[in-house]
Every structure is written in C-alpha cells, then in structure tokens.
C-alpha cells in the first residue's frame, strides 16, 4: 500500500520536476492577501505533489492555509487574495507537457475549461455549496453541459446515471428536488456527483465531511474511495481530522501557518512523525477504544494570525523543543529524509551540532500537570440529581390550508434518564435523533409534551418536577441548570461586551446588586476559564473560536450551577483547541462539583469525557450504560454501527475486517417504522420480530440497558476490538 511514489525528484522542494507519475505539483506557492492592515501571507511557500491515482491528505489546524492552497489550484481565491509567486504544475495526461495553472488568468477561458472538467472540487458545507434556487438536477446538468456537448435530454440521462453512481436512492425523484429538501449527506453526494460529472483526473475535497455526522461521514468517505478505485482519479483531501486522514490518505502533507512542515507516506507520518507539530497534533486526538480518560495532551496556545507570523520557524512559539537563538531567528529549511519524506525543522538538520535535546524524538509534548482527572466522584449516591421519566416532546406537523395537524414529529419519545450528581452523562446519536431537543427540554427551553423531569437539589429540599413548573416558578432553577451551546460564533451577542454577556444571568437575578461586585465575579470567572480579566470590556469578535467557547463556558458557570448541559460544545473546534476545552471542562467539573450532560455526535470525545453514555435513536434511548462497557461491548446494533463509523487515527486499522455501514438516512421521525425503529437499517434484523414488535429498554446485564430483542444473543464488536469479528 505504501508503494512509494518512486519518484526521487519529488523530494526537492524547489525547482522540482514534474514526473510522469505526478498529476499535480505545487512548487513554492505563495498566495497573499493584500489588505489595508498589511499583507496576509496565507500560503507562504508550499510545495507538494499529488501522484496519479493516489490520495494526498493536507492536514493542519484552521488558519493554516489548507483551503487557500486548494483554492489556489483552481484560481478560486477571492480578492484581495492573489497568487504572488510559485507554480502549480498540472499534468492530467502523462503524454503532455505540464501546464502552470498559477500563470492562468483566474477569470479566463483556459482555467474555466479545467475547473469542473479536469479538476473537480467538493466543499465543506454541502447545503450551502448548492444554490437553494435550483434543483439538484438543474445544477448537475449544467455542470455536465458546461464541458460536454450534449442535448438537454442526454444531459439529463447522464445526470441521473451520475446520481445513481454516487448512491442517491430514487434518482429520478431526487433530480427534481431542491437542496434544502435533502439531508446533508445527500447534498454532499450530489456535490460529489457534480464534481465528478466530467470524470476529472483530480478531485479536490475541502473538508467534505466536517459538517456531517459520523455515520454519514463514513459513507461519504467510502463513496470517495470507491469512485477513486473506479476512475483512477487522484484526490487531494483537506481535513483537520486525523482519523479521516488515517482512513483516506496514501500520502500526508502537514501544514502550519501557510507552510508545509512535514510530508510523507501515511504510515510514516502516523508511526514515525518527525516534526514536533505533527507529533503534537497526533497526541491531541482523543483516540477511541483505548478507554483512557487521562487529560488530553494539547498544543500550547493557538495558531497565530497569519499577519503576525513569528519570525524564524513559524511553529517555535508553540513548540516544546524550540531552541532559542535558532528557531526564533532562522526559518528551518525543508530537509529531505529520504523515501519521499520532507520535514522542515532545525532538529533534523544534519549540519547542526547536536542539540541538548535528542533530535531523534523531540520532547514535543509533555504533560505538565500530573493527571488530576479524578475517578468518578465516590460520592455518587443512589439519589440522582435529575431523573427524567417518560419524557415526550412532540412537534405537530401541519398540512393544508388551515394548518390541520397531520401528525407529530416525535423528537423525544418516552425517554427515561438518570443523571447522578458529579457524573458526566454522554448523549450520542446521529443528527435528527432528538438529543438536542432532549437537552433543551431538560433546560426547559422547550415545554415538553409530557413526562416528568425530577430535579433533586443535592443540598437538600424536596425534589421538584421541572416539566410542570411555570416560567416564574422555574426562575430559581434556571441558575442551577445551564447550557453551553455548540456554535461559538452564533451564541454570543456581537453587540455586547464579555462583561455584559457573562453577567447577564446575574443581573436577571439581583437587579439591585452593586456593579463592582458583579465585575469582580466576572473577572474571577474569566480567570477560571483561562481568559484574562482585562478582556471583559471587549466584544466577542476579537476572540477566536476556542476563546469564545471559553466565554460560553464562563457564562454557563457564573451562576454556580449544579448541572451543565453541553450541547455539542466542542464540535465546532479544531483538534488542539478541542483538547484544551475538554481539559478545561474536566478541571471545572472537579473544581465546582459539576454534573454534565454532554451531548455530542463525536464518540471519541464522549468516551474521553463521560462516565456513562446514553445512545439515542429516533427520539428513544436505545442503549445506556457505563462508558467502558459500552465501548468494549455494545449491546445494540446501532451503537455498534456508530462505533464502527468513527475514523481511527491509525492507518493500520484501515483495511482490517468488515465495517458496518448504515444504509439510508434516518427514517422520517413523523412516521417512524413499525416494530423496532432501527430495523430498517439494522444489519442484524430478523424478520420474525423486529418489524412488528417494538423492543423495550431493559437491562441486559446489571447497569447495561439496551432496547433490542436480541441484545443478549448478538455478539457485537466494540471499539476496543479491531474491526473484525462481529457475528450475527
């Protein structure tokens, strides 16, 4: 698999020759944005090659110039961005001479003939990348007819064939659907159909699965690989998810601040990373199935903005092995390590006198604080902090002229859930399974249709049923149960300062309280979440995504709550920032004796943070148990499928054994299938019971509940196993 490009010429970063085995060669590319504040060097000397028929993954945190590099290839950089220097050699056909795309006019005819025709591109947000004003079919036929001379009818036939090829069911019907009528996964398939409409020699995929669910992501990745096998195209895959890299890549390019810090084959990068940044990135990934709940190792700080790029090595400000006097002065050259490996680090410079730190394994990341992640609170009593019983949240579906209620979407349907004081309960499931709605019901942002939410203040007092309280009665509990939201950008009012944002819940409580007292409290809170108190007069736009999420956390914790509902709180963040936030959440839990309901679709994060996990499907809890038990031996086929879909940051696991892929997307929650709701997608269904009789959630072993008729019989694969032996 790691058959090296056997192209020695590739190694030379500058003045490289474009061999016949290479389809795309980027040579010292510099794409700069000239703004009024100065020149932003988003891409600053990137060299990489894409071998014919192979997949090259470009990884790095956001702000590293990955996307700009990809867009530069097709001349799609928006003004004021411009390719200032360098070459992009494009050689779709070994028989012809390479063409320099960097030299083409981005608005001209020649580059347009390459876009969509020889190079297809897929983007991050499938919904937003398709125009809402036209049908899928319209946009697909347009892409075909731009480059192939076909009649409208022929183009339609070809478009439908294309939809079949990317696995869209009922292609004739979907041809006339608008993007907003389809799910995100379907839209991404349509995008891929458009990108591959003219059988390009290269597909550029810019974070194509970042906005998707883990199960959908797995299917899309499979699809890209299948299509690659079928057509022999090369793929340039941009992602920040190292699990995806391990699944997809033949070769890996690691980028940092507009430069390539390391590149090599996927096994080399994952098993023998040479650059401190690569090593640090790999270490900040919470790996699934290890059962380790230690603090995550993080990369200190964050990516600096490209307009205040550090002198010398761009990474030296965050590098543990930085050598003063060298790294902060001289930018490292790219060292050829043989076998097509290149890394730009002074530690690898053979001419340099041996440094005090051993160059073989730069001590990139050490854990400074010894693990003070305490084991689950020994105090966890039998008395749950919150106990949810038969909770239902149904949304009416109206039809016709007078808004007749035609049915109900059962977003939450008879959910029972206990949360004990001091624990972290994970709630996982695909999007649309009702996990967010459940969280909002508990926070009483929604009025549940039925059921009880018993809340027991651990400090004493009688339990209350939150589901029945009126808004005024809820008031004291609003500060006990707080929410951290997903989107760090959308959830903070841009017109308020941090002080106003964080102090808002306090002002609601005591309107007559002295302002300075509130300020002190906010300052203290900011310090606790790792922000400087001086920032309190600034507005949210001055902060990065990770910092804003800290503000969100501060706002949630300012009232000293008992229960914090974290709704996809780290999903929008980069790997290294995510690790920082997860560590922070954990520290704060110890410090304030918090109880978390952690809602996420990311199973590796859940495993890392949670004591117990509940899996949700179509508004129901299908499995619930301790984290270790769930990941080691799931009892519900849905859990097994979810675990199997998580990409693992280990390329060796790639081709081991069968993987479970759930067919089709979620059934319509307004019209759930009869019997077991999961039977339509279940690989283990048996026709005797599953489609007629609905299973109930019951204990399989002590403390491990699953709602599957065959929970006791099925041998399901967990995450700790390598994917392989799973029987039926």
């Amino acid at each position, binding site marked *: 698999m790691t058959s090296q490009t056997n192209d020695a010429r590739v190694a030379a970063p500058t003045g490289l020759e474009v061999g016949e085995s290479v389809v795309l060669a980027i040579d010292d590319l510099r794409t700069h944005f000239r703004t009024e504040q100065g020149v932003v060097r988003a891409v600053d000397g990137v060299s990489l090659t894409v071998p014919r028929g192979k997949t090259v993954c470009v990884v790095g945190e956001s702000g590293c110039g990955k996307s700009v590099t990809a867009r530069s290839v097709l001349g799609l950089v*928006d003004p004021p961005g411009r390719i200032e220097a360098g070459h992009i050699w494009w050689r779709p056909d070994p028989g012809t001479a390479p063409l320099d795309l960097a030299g083409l006019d981005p608005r001209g005819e020649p580059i347009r003939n390459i876009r969509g025709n020889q190079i297809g591109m897929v*983007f991050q947000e499938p919904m937003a990348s398709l125009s809402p004003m036209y049908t899928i079919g319209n946009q697909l036929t347009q892409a075909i007819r731009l480059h192939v001379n076909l009649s409208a009818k022929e183009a339609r036939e070809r478009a439908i064939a294309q939809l079949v090829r990317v696995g869209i069911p009922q292609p004739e019907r979907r041809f006339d659907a608008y993007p907003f009528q389809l799910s995100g996964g379907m839209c991404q398939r349509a995008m891929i159909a458009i990108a591959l409409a003219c059988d390009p020699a290269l597909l550029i995929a810019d974070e194509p699965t970042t906005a998707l669910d883990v199960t959908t992501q797995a299917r899309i990745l499979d699809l890209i690989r299948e299509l690659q096998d079928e057509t022999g195209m090369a793929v340039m895959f941009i992602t920040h998810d190292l699990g995806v890299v391990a699944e997809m890549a033949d070769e890996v390019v690691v980028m940092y601040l507009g430069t390539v810090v390391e590149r090599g084959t996927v096994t080399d990068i994952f098993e023998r990373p040479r650059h401190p940044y690569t090593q640090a990135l790999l270490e900040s990934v919470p790996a699934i199935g290890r059962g380790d709940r230690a603090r995550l190792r993080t990369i200190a700080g964050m990516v600096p903005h490209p307009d205040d790029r550090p002198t010398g090595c761009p990474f030296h400000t965050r590098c543990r092995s930085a050598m003063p006097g060298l790294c902060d002065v001289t930018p490292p050259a790219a060292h050829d390590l043989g076998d097509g490996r290149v890394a730009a680090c002074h530690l690898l410079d053979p001419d340099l006198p041996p440094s005090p730190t051993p160059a073989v394994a730069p001590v990139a990341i050490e854990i400074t604080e010894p693990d003070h992640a305490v084991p689950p609170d020994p105090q966890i009593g039998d008395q749950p902090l919150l106990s949810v019983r038969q909770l239902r949240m149904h949304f009416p579906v109206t039809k016709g002229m007078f808004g007749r209620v035609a049915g109900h979407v059962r977003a939450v349907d008879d959910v029972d859930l206990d949360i004990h004081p001091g624990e972290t309960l994970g709630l996982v499931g695909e999007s649309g399974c009702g996990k967010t709605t459940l969280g909002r019901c508990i926070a009483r942002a929604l009025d549940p249709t039925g059921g009880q939410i018993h809340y027991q203040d651990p400090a004493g007092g009688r339990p209350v049923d939150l589901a029945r309280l009126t808004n005024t009665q809820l008031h004291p509990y609003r500060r006990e149960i707080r929410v951290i939201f997903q989107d760090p950008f959308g959830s903070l009012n841009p017109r308020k300062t941090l002080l106003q944002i964080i102090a808002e819940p306090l002002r609601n409580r005591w309107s007559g309280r002295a302002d300075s007292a509130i300020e002190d409290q906010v300052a203290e809170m900011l310090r606790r979440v790792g922000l400087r108190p001086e920032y309190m007069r600034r507005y949210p736009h001055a902060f990065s995504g990770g910092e804003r999420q800290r503000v969100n956390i501060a706002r949630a914790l300012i009232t000293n709550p008992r229960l914090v509902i974290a709704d996809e709180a780290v999903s929008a963040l980069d790997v290294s920032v995510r690790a920082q936030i997860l560590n922070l959440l954990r520290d704060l839990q110890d410090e304030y004796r918090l109880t978390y309901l952690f809602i996420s679709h990311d199973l590796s994060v859940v495993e890392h943070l949670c004591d117990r996990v509940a899996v949700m499907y179509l508004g129901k809890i299908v499995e619930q148990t301790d984290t270790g038990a769930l990941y080691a031996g799931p009892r519900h086929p849905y859990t097994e499928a979810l675990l199997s879909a998580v990409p693992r940051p280990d390329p060796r696991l790639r081709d081991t054994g069968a993987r479970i892929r759930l067919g089709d997307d979620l059934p319509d929650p307004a019209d759930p299938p009869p019997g077991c709701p999961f039977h339509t997608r279940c690989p283990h269904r048996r026709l005797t019971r599953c489609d007629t009789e609905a299973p109930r959630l019951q204990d399989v072993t002590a403390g491990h509940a699953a709602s599957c008729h065959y929970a006791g019989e099925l041998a399901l694969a967990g995450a700790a196993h390598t994917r392989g032996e799973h029987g039926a």
Partner: protein
Amino acid sequence: MLSFLGRRALYMIPTVFLISVVSFAIIQLPPGDYLTALVTRLEAQGETVDQTQLEGLRSRYGLGEAFHVQYWKWISGIVADLDFGQSFEWNRPVADLLADRLPLTIALAGATVLFTWLMAFPIGIYSAVKQYSVGDYVATTLGFLGLAMPNFLLALLLMWIAFSTFGLSVGRPNPVTFAIAIGVLGTAGTAGLIRILRANLLDELRKPYVVAARAQGLPERRLLVKYPLRVAMNPFFSTVGWLLPSLVGGEVIVATVINLNTVGPLLLSALQSQDMYLAGSIILILSVLTVIGTLISDVALAWLDPRVRLRTGR
C-alpha cells in the same frame, strides 16, 4: 401552491375589514363633523347659519347617529352596490370623484415602480460587482443624495429646470409634469433599492455556492445572473406591496407642487374638511390596493424562490 394562494386570499378578508373599521374610526376621531367644519368656515366669512337647517342636514347625512350605525351604512353600501357615499364638499358621489382621479394615481404609481426598477437594477448590480470602484462610489453618493433630498424640493428644482431651460409649461398636467413626478417620486425608492440590492448581492457573492459554481467552470456573467442575482432579486418583489402607500404619502406634496390631479391632494382636502365618506373611501381603497399588492409580491416571491414556495406548506 394553490393552498398557499387560497390561504393568503382568505387572510385578506379580515385584514381589509379591520382596516375599514380603523380608518372609519380615525376619520371620526377629531371633534366635530363636516357640518361644524362648514359652520366655522361660513361664520369666518361673516355669514350665519340657521340652526334648524343645520339639524335637517345633520339628520339627512346621518351625522348624529352612533358610530356603528354610520359605519354599517357606509360599508353595506360599498359591499352591496359599490356606493361609496356622497362627498359633502364636492357634492358628488365619491365613486365619481375617485373614477376621475384613481387611474392617474395608479398609472403614476406603476410608472414609478418601473422607473425605480429600471434605474436600481443595473446600478445596484454594478456597484456590488465592482465594489469600491469609482463607479460604485459615484452610485453610492448619488444614492445618498436621492435618499436625503426632500421630494418637494426636487420637484421644485426639476420644474424650474424644465421651465427655465426648456421653456416648458408645467402649470397644467402634461407628459412633462408626469415625467417629473415619476422622477421625483422614484428617486428615493431607487436610492433605497440600490442600497438593498448592493448589500444583498454582496452577501450572496460571498456564499459558498458561488465559489462552488465557479469551481464547475461557469463563466462569471452567467454565474452572476443565474445564482446570486436571483436571490438578490427578492427585495424587488417585496417592495411592490408597500410601495403604494408610501407613494401616495409622498405624492401629496409633489402632486400639489406640480399640480397633478391625483388622489393624494384630494385625500388631504377631504381630511381637512372632515368630508368623512370621501376620506374613508380613499383610505379604504388604498388599503385594499396595498393588500392586493402584498399578495402579488408574495406570489411573485413564491414563484421566484423555491424556499418560500416549498417551506410554507409545513
């Protein structure tokens, strides 16, 4: 789509009913009625009015009756046989008065809308596509001027230019005054619409789907027309609905200055003399036209934008 249309049409009925009640009530709010206003005017001229004669008139017009009786008299006449009542001041049926004036008003409004679109559309696109170019700055500056300058001032200025430079008579209604009126009335709307179109288009041009379409190899001009422009067109259609009332409001002064026989000045004088049936009927008809205009713009929006069409059914 049909159910969408049907629902919107049904919504119109209570809306129009409420408008008619409110407008009738507002007309009656000032103390006194048409007769007291008439008496004041006559007494100011030194004449006396016979009280018995006055009482006779009052009972004939039904002015002393309760509000709901008067309202019922008025509205039932309109619904049953399009009888809008009698104008006290003009001593003619309101329907006749309106028949004289309404066509010109509607023609003026329609022509103004067209003028606004024809001006705003190309300028708006230009200043969005060539953002921060000289042309954009010029268009933006002119737009601000157009927004800021009071209508009557512009009307006077144009009339003066027409008279002094071209020697045209502007005292009587003729094509020139009509054109001036269109220009004056349309300026503010055009300027506003340019701003909206520019802002909308700039937003749309940054959307990922534009880059995605470009990545398919679509030529710039086709891309612009097919994708972002169609989305940015929304305000053009939504303006149809509320253009009419604002036009009639702005038109009062302009039509007075230019001496055009439109509904605006008629409404003003009817309100001054408390000529209640005339005023009430004008307001009612304008509201109905506005409601219909809103319906048309809703339908046009639904036709233009599948998101409106396919999501409202829920």
